């Protein structure tokens, strides 16, 4: 929930509805309120059938609640009315009793129904959001912080749910209450109604002006709070550096500056918004007093009965409360719609293009790869790869070397269609890769990346990820081939060991071995090793190197590495720099060329070799 509840707690429009739903932060306004609302309405889908029933319940309930003050007034009159009124009192009290019981039942029913409706809608929204994520290209995930996407799935959808379950019914019943109370008040006594109405414009003006000012202040406060949290996050997680550079004092100083400013803004926002409650209270009491006095005067003059005063007091309260609440309900609604808008934004993202109509399924390709004048850029004028052409024979190993950001990873991203080429063509076994189904194309590749990704689950499940129907024997064989069985067998639960999120309970090297076992089991025809061993110390790397050599055998492989010893046996080594292939050839021929590769290799190895001799 919101971190700071500076706003006064929202009182339910009637006691009993929603205990303590606390205050919320500043309201984020949706960009296109109407359009989003319309789409949200579409998202109701099946639930639309239930809505008339809910609204009927709300309507009946509101009418019942409207009758209560009238009945109370009648029973008061029955008490003061003199003889033969005991029967009348009995009737009104009984009517009141029935209407209260009905109200209870209807409220319960409504809450019951709305819980189902809102949760089902929200579940479907979450589902379609997640399914959408399956169809989005990798570029989408690369360009967005995960935290932001997470917040769309959680906070935003939460807001939608709140606004559906709370606002819809409240808005309805609030509107009925206001109109109904007004009508009843007019019927009971037009003069008293006018007296009572004096407070309405006051309430309206006051809430408006204060709310306008406070919303700005609260927004500022939220910004300041964000700044402070950012500062805390940075200085606490980077405390080694803070301490190493003796910056404790400076960090504290900066902290105090932001903190003081936060306190100042917070105080202003609080005080201003804090005024609202007591002032509303005064106005309500003023209304109460005015009704009492005017009613008293009228009653003294015999123009109305005491019962009317009693009913009137209740009506005036029923009239004002939803009026006060409307602003709040509107806020909830607004943040709900804003949340829905952010969810829809994701749903509207461009998906990976469909496969071409007569796309072929690729199975067991030989692995002959040709890049023909391939260029790629996120924007046409900023090419990351420029006119790249090369050929890799089936079963050969191609290594890509070059500085970070040169475009090595882009080459393999294009090959697997994580991204599509901007111009040029990539052929696999003589056919444009776009003529294959994306599914079957990717299935032909095995990946071992620098950051291995393991899922929470058992070791066995993780190895089987690429081939869910594999038998235990196959899993164990794959693990053995990947040199992973040694450490797995040492674990108390062996293959059934539960991994925490991203395999946090294994070392980097062990995770990499599991990733390799996963690839071995999936038996891909082509292989991509992207800095597969760069975050592992060199002695552990030896084990992994063996495993990698095993799987590279007979498969067309693309290897990206900045430790050059890992790639010297490659059939072709390509040096990539600033999006272009600057050199190409075998290790020996490149060394002879005395070019960039020679330079790189020289830097890394010459001294080592010299000392070895």
């Amino acid at each position, binding site marked *: 929930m919101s971190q700071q509840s500076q706003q006064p707690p929202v009182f339910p429009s009637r006691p009993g509805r929603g205990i303590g739903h606390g205050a919320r932060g500043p309201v984020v306004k949706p960009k296109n309120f109407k359009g989003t609302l319309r789409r949200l309405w579409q998202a109701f889908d099946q639930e639309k059938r239930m809505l008339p029933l809910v609204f009927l319940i709300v309507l009946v309930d509101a009418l019942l609640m409207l009758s209560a003050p009238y009945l109370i007034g009648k029973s008061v009159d029955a008490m003061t009315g003199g003889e033969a009124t005991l029967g009348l009192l009995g009737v009104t009290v009984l009517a009141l009793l029935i209407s209260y019981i009905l109200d209870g039942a209807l409220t319960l029913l409504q809450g019951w129904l709305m819980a189902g409706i809102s949760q089902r809608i929200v579940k479907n929204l979450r589902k379609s959001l997640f399914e959408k994520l399956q169809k989005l290209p990798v570029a989408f995930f690369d360009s967005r912080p995960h935290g932001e996407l997470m917040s769309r799935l959680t906070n935003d959808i939460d807001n939608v749910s709140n606004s559906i379950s709370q606002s819809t019914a409240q808005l309805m019943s609030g509107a009925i209450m206001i109109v109904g109370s007004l009508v009843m008040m007019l019927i009971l006594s037009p003069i008293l109604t006018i007296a009572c109405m004096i407070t309405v414009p006051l309430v309206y003006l006051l809430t408006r002006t204060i709310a306008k000012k406070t919303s700005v202040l609260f927004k500022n406060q939220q910004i300041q709070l964000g700044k402070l949290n950012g500062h805390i996050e940075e200085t606490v997680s980077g405390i080694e550096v803070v301490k190493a550079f003796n910056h404790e004092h400076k960090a504290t100083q900066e902290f105090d500056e932001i903190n003081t400013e936060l306190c100042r803004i917070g105080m202003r926002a609080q005080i201003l918004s804090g005024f609202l409650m007591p002032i509303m209270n005064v106005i309500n009491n003023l209304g109460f007093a005015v009704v009492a006095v005017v009613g008293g005067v009228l009653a003294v003059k015999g123009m109305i009965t*005491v019962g009317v005063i009693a009913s009137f007091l209740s009506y005036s309260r029923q009239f004002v409360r939803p009026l006060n609440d409307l602003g709040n309900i509107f806020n909830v609604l607004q943040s709900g719609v804003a949340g829905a808008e952010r969810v829809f934004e994701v749903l509207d993202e461009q998906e990976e293009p469909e496969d071409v109509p007569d796309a072929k399924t690729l199975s067991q390709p030989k692995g002959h790869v040709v890049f023909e004048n391939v260029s790629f850029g996120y924007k046409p004028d900023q090419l990351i790869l420029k006119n790249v052409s090369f050929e890799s024979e089936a079963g050969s190993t191609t290594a890509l070397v070059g500085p970070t950001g040169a475009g090595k990873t882009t080459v393999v991203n294009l090959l697997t269609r994580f991204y599509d080429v901007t111009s040029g063509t990539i052929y696999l076994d003589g056919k444009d890769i776009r003529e294959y189904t994306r599914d079957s194309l990717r299935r032909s590749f095995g990946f071992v990346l620098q950051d291995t990704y393991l899922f929470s689950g058992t070791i066995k499940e993780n190895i089987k990820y690429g081939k869910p129907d594999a038998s235990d024997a196959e899993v164990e064989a794959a693990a053995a081939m990947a040199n992973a069985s040694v450490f797995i067998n040492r674990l108390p639960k062996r293959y059934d060991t539960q991994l925490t999120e991203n395999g946090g309970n294994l070392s980097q090297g062990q995770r990499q071995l599991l990733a390799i076992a996963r690839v071995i089991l999936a038996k891909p025809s082509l292989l991509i090793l992207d800095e597969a061993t760069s975050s592992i*110390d060199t002695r552990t790397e030896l084990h992994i190197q063996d495993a990698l050599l095993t799987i590279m055998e007979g498969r067309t492989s693309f290897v990206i590495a900045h430790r050059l010893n890992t790639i010297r046996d490659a059939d072709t080594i390509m040096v990539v720099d600033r999006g272009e292939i600057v050199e190409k050839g075998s290790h020996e021929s490149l060394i002879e060329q005395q070019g960039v590769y020679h330079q790189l290799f020289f830097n890394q190895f010459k001294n080592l070799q010299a000392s070895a001799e």
Partner: protein
Amino acid sequence: MRLYTKYIKKYGVVFCVSLFFLTLEAVCDLLQPTIMSRIVDVGVAQRDLNYVLSTGGLMLGVTAIGAVAATMRNLLSTYVSQNFGAQLRSDLFKKVQSLSFENIDRFDRASLVTRLTNDVNQVQVFVNGMMRIFVKAPLTCIGGLIMATQLNPRLAVVLAVVVPIVGLFIYLNMKIGFPFFMKVQQSLDRVNGVMREYLSGVRVVKAFNRFDFEVDKFSHANEELQTKSISATRVMSIFSPAIMLTVNLGIVAVLWMGGLAAEQGDMQVGHIIAFTNYMTQILFSLMMISMVFNMFVRAKASAGRIGEVFAEENRMTWKEQGSLQGDGKGRIDFEHVSFSYEGGHGESVLKDITFSCLPGETVGIIGSTGSGKSSLVGLIPRFYDATKGTVRVDGVDVREVDPKLLREKMAIVPQKTVLFTGTVKENIRWGKDEATDEEMELAARMAQAHDFIERTPDGYQARVGQGGINFSGGQKQRLSIARALVRKPEILILDDSTSAVDVATETKIKEALREYAQGLTCLLIAQRITSVMDADKIVVLDQGELVGIGTHESLLKDCRVYQEIFQSQIGKEVQ
């Protein structure tokens, strides 16, 4: 709670004054229905217009007093809660900054951040609430009960029945509701977990085409969340109408009993109206109290978590007059140093290490992950203190020196690059506030960062971090090196800080260091032998033990571990 005495002393008086106003406010609220009943029973019944008007005036007067009290209370409570919160947060921040790593390690970093942000907020909200509604609710509740009973003891029988029932409902609501919401939270965590995994593993999912599996997994979690949420909301939706109904039935009972009594002339109508009004007030306050409990539980947990941090005592001690006036600038000695984390109770990370770095020497440290390299250099700036043995800087035992003095003369480039939000310039200058632009540029040039900084559109004004340019890992490392160099330290510690920098650039950095920073003692942790092979001395660590020390050539001859590392890096070439 002893920790909070300080704040009670500081804000106690204002706090109490604000409670006084709060009480005044509550009393004013409570008087309303009684005054109202007089208007009806005396004024209207006796057709006394003057009485109606004067009592009405009294009612407005009471309202006005209530409003003034509320306003004062608002001012005071805001003042107290905001200042208290700010100060508590500031104190906690200072405390965290002052703790040694041994203390900090007891907490998860993320949890420290939460304590500073969320927990402080919780406590602040509670203090604020206490001065707003939490105290008012019981006051109104008890006051309402007293007023109602006084008004009409006979009708109070209804209260005696209704209030306990409502209390029971509120209790059940919390008792039954809480576990339900815990379950909802758990399923929500699961949904988020699946989502988070998917987001980080999206390439793997795509590569293996496991969309159906992922969607299934998600649907399962999603379905469960839906079921749990619906049942939780439904259970909760029973209580509100139940409470309402109980109170309403009470009102009906009051009307009926009151009506019968009024019939016999035993009771006045105004009393009955006032009584129903009190009932509503009591109901409201009961519901507020249930909220107070919720808030209290949360605030108490938060206060406890904050207290834990305050309770940490800095274990690092030093002599006030201790200074680094020893012989030799930048000399470092390790004398039989052993170390383990968790205050010496953990597994030993370093075992009996002895070696020296002479002023101006470059010492390489190599060994596989987990061999204790980072722990070893962490002892020099006193991030931790050795469990056994002595670490000397300039010949002085570091335990006798204020860590501040010690850290002033050294610069560290940590393994994990940490840059702060701000411009490139601000980040480099972080190393030395008073550095001139020239000094800064020189540092950037030495770290081979100048060229790529210049290539960004904003140059040194380019923003790092959120909303700024995303520098690559290697570029960030170079910025972090520049930040260390601008300090012109006597001792430079590079903790595997060129791992993402390509070999050619790394060589240039080392050449620059050799040229500009003569007399600088440099400790260099590395994975690659090429990074350390030209060092004056190489220390080889293996599982916390020093297994070799010497030059590259001598180690190749007689250090088995070093040979192994060498072999692994040169590949088959040597065979």
